[in-house]
């Protein structure tokens, strides 16, 4: 039986075999852990689904392979030795049979012939999109023209199409390329160029793992395809700090060890704000917008080698203590890379808090397909004017909301931020 690289999550296209639990020749039972894989944001143990002997390991530890790749072969021991050659005989003529080597002489092993995949069954959809098929002015761009323009740094908004109804075709892109030699170099220098440039500089080479690759791909896609705009407001924190101290005193009396953090309260405040401004709780889905009826809030967690954004579902409907408990559990498992894909997918908005590093304020990149992200800076002591014209010092956070303008307009984003600010500055409602 061929063991395939599973797909963990619908946008995941490849995974890294991070550990082989079994070695060639080991016998396995259904449910025995076989190997561990690391995908975009998690690592997971893959169990055997049949009994037999692990006769072949095709993918070495650390290798990145596409979903569906045969990573190992389990030979079912002692059964049906006659039927197996027939399975091999059906290989298409073009197939190059790879014969597995049995490792254990003790078990009556059969030879398993790996069958090349019938090309008709294996339709491979392009992994990348090269931009919209229709320009804002209605002009259609052919798929080839889109790819050529994208790969050669040609701006399709500047082209005149020569096809029917002004359609932009490949020839229009190539003509543009040949007439404008002064264009800047394509954005992506090749890896060879980069290696050459730094060849003489002492350096270490760090491998790019699945998570790093996913971060690179998704955030590049986000910055290139999502029209971000940014809204920044100061938020006074004193009332929240007072409430948090009081709440923690009460909690200490009730259950040992549990303490609310500022982050817990910020999650709740953002959820409350989303409930008050549902127009901001939206997802851009190309030809439509999904307005979510629940505040699912992602929270960026820095982990060894990258970050992951687990999502707290229905944060609006949960108490702050429940959010606090859930966040602890998610963060711990995120750091161990044990999150399930369902735990970090979805949501409409995320929070990135760099306050603990002393960052005063910053702008975050939206984590697609979400539509917004709230960047939270460090609390500062600032002088504020009091009601009677005097001056006092107060704790103040600076938060910046990054919005996807396709789905959220400036006024909607501003109202969301206003509701958030109010929830933090009059925080008692967060506990009700």
């Amino acid at each position, binding site marked *: 039986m061929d063991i395939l690289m599973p797909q963990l999550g619908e946008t995941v296209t490849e995974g890294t075999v991070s550990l082989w639990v079994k070695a060639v020749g080991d016998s396995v039972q259904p449910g025995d852990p076989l190997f561990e894989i690391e995908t975009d944001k998690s690592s997971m143990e893959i169990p055997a689904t049949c009994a037999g002997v692990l006769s072949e390991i095709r993918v070495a530890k650390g290798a990145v392979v596409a979903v569906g790749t045969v990573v190992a072969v389990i030979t079912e021991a002692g059964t049906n030795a006659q039927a197996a050659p027939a399975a091999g*005989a*059906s290989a*298409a003529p073009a197939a190059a049979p790879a014969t597995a080597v049995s490792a254990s002489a003790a078990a009556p092993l059969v030879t398993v012939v790996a069958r090349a995949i019938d*090309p008709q069954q294996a339709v491979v*959809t*392009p992994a990348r999109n090269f931009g919209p098929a229709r320009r804002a002015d209605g002009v259609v761009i052919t798929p080839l023209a889109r*790819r050529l323009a994208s790969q050669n740094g040609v701006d399709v908004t500047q082209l005149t199409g020569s096809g*029917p109804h002004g359609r932009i075709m*490949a020839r229009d892109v190539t003509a543009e390329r040949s007439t404008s030699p002064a264009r800047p170099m394509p954005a992506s220098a090749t890896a060879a160029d980069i290696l050459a440039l730094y060849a003489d500089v002492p350096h270490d080479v760090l491998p790019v793992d699945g998570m790093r690759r996913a971060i690179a791909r998704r955030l590049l896609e986000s910055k290139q395809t999502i029209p971000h705009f940014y809204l920044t407001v100061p938020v006074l924190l004193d009332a929240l700090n007072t409430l948090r101290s009081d709440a923690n005193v009460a909690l200490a009396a009730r259950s040992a060890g549990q303490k609310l953090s500022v982050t817990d309260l910020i999650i709740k405040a953002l959820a409350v704000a989303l409930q008050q401004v549902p127009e901001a709780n939206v997802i851009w889905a190309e030809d439509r917008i999904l307005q979510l009826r629940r505040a699912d809030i992602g929270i960026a967690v820095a982990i060894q080698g990258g970050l992951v954004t687990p999502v707290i579902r229905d944060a609006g409907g949960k108490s702050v203590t429940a959010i606090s408990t859930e966040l602890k559990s998610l963060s711990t498992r995120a750091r161990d890379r044990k999150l399930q894909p369902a735990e970090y997918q979805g949501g409409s908005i995320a929070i990135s808090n760099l306050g603990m590093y002393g960052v005063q304020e910053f702008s975050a990149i939206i984590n697609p397909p979400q539509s917004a992200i709230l960047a939270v800076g460090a609390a500062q002591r600032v002088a504020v004017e009091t009601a009677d014209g005097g001056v006092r010092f107060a704790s103040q956070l600076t938060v910046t909301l990054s919005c996807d303008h396709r789905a959220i307009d400036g006024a909607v984003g501003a109202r969301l931020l206003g509701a958030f600010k109010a929830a933090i500055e009059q925080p008692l409602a967060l506990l009700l």
Partner: protein
Amino acid sequence: MAELTYRDAVARGIAQEMARDPDVVLIGEDIAKAGGVFKATVGLYEQFGPRRVRDTPISEQAILGAAMGAAMTGLKPIAEIMFADFAAVCWDYFANEFPKSRYMTNGQVKTPLVVRLGNGGGARFGAQHSQSVENWCMMIPGLKVVVPSSPIDVVGLMAAAVRDPDPVIFLEHKSLYATKGEVPDGEIVDTLGTAKILRPGKDATILALSLMVPRALEAADRLQAEHGIDCEVIDVRSLVPLDTQTILASVARTHRVFTVEENPRLCGWGAELMSIIADEAFYELDGPLVRITTPHIPLPAADVLEDLVIPNAARIVETVLRTLSN
């Protein structure tokens, strides 16, 4: 090297395999002493005798039932269903028996047989004797489907079909039987699942099958001579397995694709190929995918009408010109 008709190539291909393997037998209506209704099996009875070349009653179900039994018990039968339209009479064998037996018995029962059918129109046989049924056969998982267009391919693909361990549907075109082509001497064995680039070109890819292949070649010559358009013509030859590599590589060179299909338009073989191209080669496409097919109608018997509805060189030229000049 000899010049052979497509009809004689059928007999030559069968003879090659029968001489090589005593398990290969031939059954069908009037295929023995009469040499076949289309004269595609002339001489085989004389060469291999009545035990291996057998006439059957006029019952397609009996022919295919006998072939299946023979295949299950160790022979490699070649069965002829005279007109491809009659596949519908014995469709249970096509759809349920041949293609499923190996799967359902976990490989214990194999049906290594070949069904030859006289396919296609152009011979004024009317709506029930002129259909192109390659798309019917293509849709059944477990069947392999071969549709040769030239005498040399008939011989080589016949050998590949007979030697294949699975049921292979071998569609001969009635209007190609009289066409001629060079066939080298000696044993010829081709490979299922391989397409052939018959005419390289850079401006557009034309995918064709069977009788549509010579018509596509004629159209490509005219497009080149009269309009300076350089078309690549690919004979798909085998629908299952399908040579997507050759097809997708061609699309990546030309960026425009046409199919020329004799089967009626709905769910024709080109629809499946175009869907694969639209998916895998999307960013190679510089224009719409265009299918040139017989319309979705019963074929007329009247000569002018039949000639009007089946794609011909003029229609291919006109469609390619209109599409590319847009």
